[in-house]
């Protein structure tokens, strides 16, 4: 299949470069930028005049809910939602049922994902057996089966001794460890950020310490063991500052934040809106601003959707009893573009392309000769209203329902194939 994307604004998030040019694709890779290779005859031409053309988005936290939670979503529905959001590669946490702690499960998942043939799936393996936080999972075998990193999902490791050993073992083989920094006992205290809103609404609070204590411990253990540490979904401003200081001392650590936490705060809970019941909880306005600043100065490597489809029954409950999480795949691009700051279009996309690719140890995504043609074509100026009923994802739970967002995906290509937009 030969395709030409004609006269789009080609974005290079790695350098911030932007130029209007034709993009020629053959056999799943970029065959020419500007001038077509000799004798190139496209079977398909996409008119991208007035549109932007970017490397496909890479999302570091997508719950596919399969296996085990098919009542909420499936690989088919969620990978279709991913490409509808311009996302061509997703990393998925191991917290399915059963958790991804056996090579056979990983192989089954990657086989299923390949058969669906939409966004590429990079599975994270369970760091401990059954995610129970006690015994190590077979990390080397899981890596051989395709796991790009190891995680405890949203859980913590049982105790410091186990954590230390797990990170030492992972470091032996240079296997990346992705941790959601959470102190288990402090997390259990509540359901909303411990602050003014939780106080007013009488919701049990989760102190910022529930995260910062864990960040501090993980940074120290990572330094001690030399493990490649990635911190997932920071929500507290002070956590970002701790990462900044660790980097300044020369420690190799990466981190991401969720698109929801860049725009929302505890205030958005309003009158007990369960779509704002997230984990980690939405924090204060000051925290939110610190996360945005962390993305702007590069301390935060990636913005992820933290996609967590929850069915309606799980949200039509009193706030404390509702399932946490939001559907994020189809709003990630807009929320990334709409964050405050004066970066240009290409640079704004770095935390959903170059940054997450670096965390995943993938080549720098760019539209250059020979690159894999994973591509997002979008209208940067189109406004659209978020109507959850129209989501491709089976998760209709979003705090942004009714919002007007800017930036709409028109086409998405994976391996040169148009998988969305026809």
């Amino acid at each position, binding site marked *: 299949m030969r395709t030409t994307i004609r006269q789009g604004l080609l974005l290079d998030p790695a350098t911030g470069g932007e130029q209007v040019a034709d993009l020629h694709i053959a056999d799943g890779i970029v065959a020419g930028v500007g001038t077509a290779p000799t004798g190139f005859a496209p079977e398909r031409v996409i008119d991208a005049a007035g549109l932007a053309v970017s490397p496909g988005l890479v999302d570091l936290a997508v719950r596919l809910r399969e296996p085990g939670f098919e009542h909420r979503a499936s690989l088919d529905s969620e990978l279709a939602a991913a490409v509808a959001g311009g996302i061509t590669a997703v990393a998925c946490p191991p917290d399915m049922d059963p958790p991804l702690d056996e090579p056979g499960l990983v192989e089954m998942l990657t086989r299923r994902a390949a058969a669906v043939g939409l966004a590429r799936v990079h599975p994270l393996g369970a760091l401990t057996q059954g995610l129970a936080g006690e015994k190590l999972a077979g990390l080397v075998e899981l890596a051989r089966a395709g796991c790009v990193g190891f995680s405890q999902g949203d859980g913590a490791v049982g105790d410091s001794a186990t954590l230390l050993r797990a990170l030492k073992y992972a470091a032996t083989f240079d296997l990346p460890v992705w941790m959601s920094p959470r102190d288990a006992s402090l997390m259990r205290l509540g359901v909303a950020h*411990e*602050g*003014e809103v*939780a*106080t*007013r*609404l*009488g*919701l*049990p*609070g989760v*102190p910022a310490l529930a995260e910062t204590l864990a960040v501090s411990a993980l940074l120290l253990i990572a330094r001690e063991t030399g493990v490649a540490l990635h911190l997932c979904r920071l929500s507290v401003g002070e956590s970002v500052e701790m990462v900044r200081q660790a980097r300044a001392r020369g420690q190799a650590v990466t981190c991401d934040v969720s698109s929801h936490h860049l725009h929302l705060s505890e205030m*958005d809970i*309003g*009158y*007990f*809106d369960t779509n704002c019941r997230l984990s980690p909880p939405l924090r204060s306005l000051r925290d939110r601003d610190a996360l945005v600043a962390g993305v702007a100065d590069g301390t935060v490597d990636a913005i992820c959707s933290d996609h967590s489809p929850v069915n309606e*029954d799980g949200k*039509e*409950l*009193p*706030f*404390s*009893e509702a399932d946490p999480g939001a559907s994020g795949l189809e709003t990630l691009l807009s929320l990334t573009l709409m964050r405050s700051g004066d970066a240009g279009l290409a640079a704004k996309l770095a935390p959903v392309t170059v940054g997450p690719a670096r965390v995943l140890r993938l080549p720098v995504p760019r539209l250059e000769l020979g690159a894999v043609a994973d591509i997002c074509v979008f209208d940067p100026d189109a406004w659209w209203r978020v109507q959850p009923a129209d989501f491709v994802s089976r998760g209709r739970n979003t705090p942004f329902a009714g919002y007007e967002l800017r930036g709409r995906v028109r086409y998405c290509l994976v391996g040169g194939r148009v998988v969305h937009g026809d």
Partner: protein
Amino acid sequence: MQSNPQLGPNGELRHLLSIEGLPRDVLRHILDTAASFVSVTEREIKKVPLLRGKSVFNLFFEPSTRTRTTFEIAAKRLSADVVNLNIATSSQTKGETLLDTVANLSAMHADMFVVRHASSGAPYLIARHVAPEIHVINAGDGRHAHPTQGLLDVYTIRHYKGDFTGLTVAIVGDVLHSRVARSEIHALSILGVPEIRVIGPRTLMPAEVERLGVRVFHNMEEGLRGVDVVMMLRLQNERMNGALLPSAGEYFRTYGLTPQRLALARPDAIVMHPGPMNRGVEIDSAVADGAQSVILPQVTFGIAVRMAVMAILAGNG
């Protein structure tokens, strides 16, 4: 963002879910209406026909005797039919969801739901899903709100003090877990009380509580000095021995209201308690039964206040 679900398009009260956000005039109207009902409760035939033919459902997802009884009496004095459902022990344990329970009861043509639930915000969920002609009254949700208790407390204060604008009021005890304290704070501040104090150990104070417009004291003696009203909070049994407090005895020695401590307040200060009291834990019997205690009148006024709320919601206030 959702809009305030307890007010109708013209600012009229559709549900009573929280005191927070209610205009001062609405509060005054409830208190004035309650005053007219106090005389009803003193008559020989204690009934008015304002809710004749209406059905009030008491939906108690959490056990309560006192609050449920006062709502029942209030509804009956307005001539309503009352149905009491202790759901803590029936359908919920059979796995029925909260909204299914409510949908079933709505189909029985309820006019008003009085809801008590252990989760903060549960009455909001119900109010969002009932038919527009059904009114919801929050009878206590989690740690969030107990608006009729807050109203009867300010009614009691107005009865004894006449005016709010010169008062210093202290709320003492477990503010963290108290829906009563939150409703009291909102009611007092809306009505113009210039100084609201909260007194208790740090483990029983919610984060950033000062943002609600209160002064925080951790020393009981300092906090009580010169106050006009002392509002005690109940200390739940399960909080007494654990990580929040070492023992009931130590609590009484540091925060219990004794005659000696009450002497630090103004000589005409009144003492209130939402009940049920733990004598010897948060309050000394000599104070609870003393001349400054208005704890029993609170109960009487509570019925009139609940009658007023129901009558106003039904459009007859």
